[in-house]
């Protein structure tokens, strides 16, 4: 079974903190993605990566950065967390079809 694992299911962070969300896949896929999902807004693409050390901005990259040092690991970084970044964050890895992690529900207080 394919596996995408996100490091945390639930996180609570304070405004201004630097936050790291980690994602690991065991499928040897080159393509990895970070989305956030909010009620009424659906899935919105933050960043994606086609290869190690490569990154591309998605539709809503402001306030986020990413790191892909190894093929299997794709990290999302919130440089200075704000309350409007409270959301469900989903990592995905893709060949043709995309497989998702279980999600991280982040609350910024």
């Amino acid at each position, binding site marked *: 079974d394919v596996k995408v694992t996100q490091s945390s299911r639930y996180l609570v962070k304070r405004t201004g903190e630097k936050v790291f969300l980690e994602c690991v896949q065991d499928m040897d896929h080159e393509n990895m993605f970070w989305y956030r999902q909010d009620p*009424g807004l659906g899935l919105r693409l933050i960043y*994606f990566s086609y290869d190690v050390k490569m990154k591309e901005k998605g539709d809503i990259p402001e306030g986020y950065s990413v790191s892909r040092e190894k093929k299997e690991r794709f990290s999302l970084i919130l440089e200075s967390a704000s309350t409007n970044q409270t959301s*469900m964050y989903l990592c995905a890895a893709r060949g*043709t*079809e995309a497989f*998702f992690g*279980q*999600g991280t*529900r982040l609350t910024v207080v």
Partner: protein
Amino acid sequence: QKEVEQDPGPLSVPEGAIVSLNCTYSNSAFQYFMWYRQYSRKGPELLMYTYSSGNKEDGRFTAQVDKSSKYISLFIRDSQPSDSATYLCAMLETSYDKVIFGPGTSLSVIP
């Protein structure tokens, strides 16, 4: 016009009913089509994947693609309460290489 449109529901049906979930799209370059099921507070789970017009069946689930009408459907036969979830359609244009998701349809199957 959004690239992918999907009725958000909520859709409520009695157990055993046939459910039809639909998406329309505007980009004729989409070549791959997927359906995901997402339970509350969980990540989306891939249900069906197809790249051609026509039907693809997997157990109680049938995915249908009509590229000429830019319309895809997911049918669920003999629906069960465990099918209660949000269903997202997704599409991929190979040259563009990004997956575009519909907003999801919330389904409740009432025992």
